[in-house]
């Protein structure tokens, strides 16, 4: 099996370059998304198309395939620019994700009679352009919530913990606690209202 080479150490020079580019690339992406700006797209295109071609030739040794990958990738960049979320990650990461996905689908279709693209199911675009800060939960906020939950009456704690911490369904919880489903629902509602009140000073 082939494995990808990932070189973690980076030179400070590279970091500088990519930081500079990132700001401008984000501006271009915005202009493409909001105004369908061809000029902005030409800049993104000039920056990435030759690289995508070179990467693909190096990997697959076929110029025709490489051009197909460039075409599909850049078409997606043009048509899906509105889905790019700059708060979630770098332009280059987003475009890399698109490149990998279209490549996977092109190769899969060429090897078999498959016509359905599945790459977006495997590497969801919105997820793979997401940076860590969005997926890691706020540690302090969690502690605060936990503290507030522990201040609730016991019966309300039970349902909150069951549903939100143990991820039980309300039906499962009713069964486990041996109480009617309606009681679970009303306890949950009361508990959430109380939590909202108690945390309201910071979150409303």
């Amino acid at each position, binding site marked *: 099996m082939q494995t990808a080479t990932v070189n973690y150490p980076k030179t400070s020079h*590279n970091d500088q370059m990519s930081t500079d580019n990132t700001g401008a690339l984000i501006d*271009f992406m915005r202009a493409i998304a909001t105004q*369908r*700006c061809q*000029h902005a797209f030409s800049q993104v295109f000039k920056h990435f198309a030759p690289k995508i071609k070179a990467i693909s030739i190096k990997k697959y040794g076929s110029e025709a395939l490489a051009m197909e990958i460039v075409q599909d990738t850049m078409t997606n960049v043009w048509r899906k620019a*509105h889905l790019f979320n700059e708060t979630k990650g770098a332009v280059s990461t987003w475009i890399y994700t698109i490149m990998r996905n279209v490549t996977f689908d092109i190769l899969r279709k060429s090897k078999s009679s498959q016509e359905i693209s*599945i790459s977006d199911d*495997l590497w969801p675009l919105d997820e793979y352009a997401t940076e860590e800060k969005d997926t890691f939960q706020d540690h302090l906020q969690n502690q605060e919530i936990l503290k507030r939950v522990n201040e609730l009456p016991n019966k309300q704690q039970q349902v909150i913990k069951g549903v939100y911490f143990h991820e039980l369904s309300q039906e499962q919880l009713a069964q486990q606690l041996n109480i009617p489903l309606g009681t679970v629902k009303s306890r949950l509602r009361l508990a959430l209202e109380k939590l909202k009140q108690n945390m309201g000073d910071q979150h409303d």
Partner: protein
Amino acid sequence: MINHHPKSELINAFVAGELPTALSVIVASHLELCRCCNDKAKKINQHQADDAFSDADLSLNHNDNSQENTALDNREFANHSLEDNKLTAHHLEVNNEFADMFAAIVADKTTSTPATLDPVEIKVKDNTYVLPKALSNIQRASWFKLGKLSRSNLDSSENEIHSHLIHIEAGGEIPQHTHNGYEVTLILSGDFYDELGEYSQGDFMWLDKQHKHQPKTKNGCLCLTVANDALHFTQGVGKILNPIGSLIY
């Protein structure tokens, strides 16, 4: 609690898009269940992106100028771009070999937003399960049932690699067997145990020739499996199954 995860090399190859479809699907399914591997994959994705696009050797000779200009003039272009939206490909100086491609792409004024699919639910022997999103567009054959075992072939369209959903009812087992190739199992729901340990939802196991096992389940389970060869049953009555081993896996 998930105790068994894909190796980093496998996640690396998955993110690079280098695995066969069936293996990509099973790794993606694990990532949907496993927060830590999902975070790991995203980090690897970012590193691979940085590496791919920052590799200086990749710039083609005749593009050297445009590369440098892009870095220097980016801010300026960004400002211009907001005012001037009517340039042709020629004026945009998109490199010759890409000129036609560029023109064709921007000629399409439509945008594309992928439809969000509802999760797929399946029913096996009166149990309902929600399948991973990774399986949404993979075709499933109807269930083949043999006692407490049910199996549905997944079409990942690769000759030598077979992928299945396997359902084992509570108290069921698969006779002791080994694998001529590899056998990857992901527990989508429920749990099972064998000579090597206990496994529950989200656990991802890669077994090969050196592993002999006899999975049993107390509470029943639904698994996704990928194997590149038939199972080889090693014991007692199970041996009868060898000629039809390919039916089960």
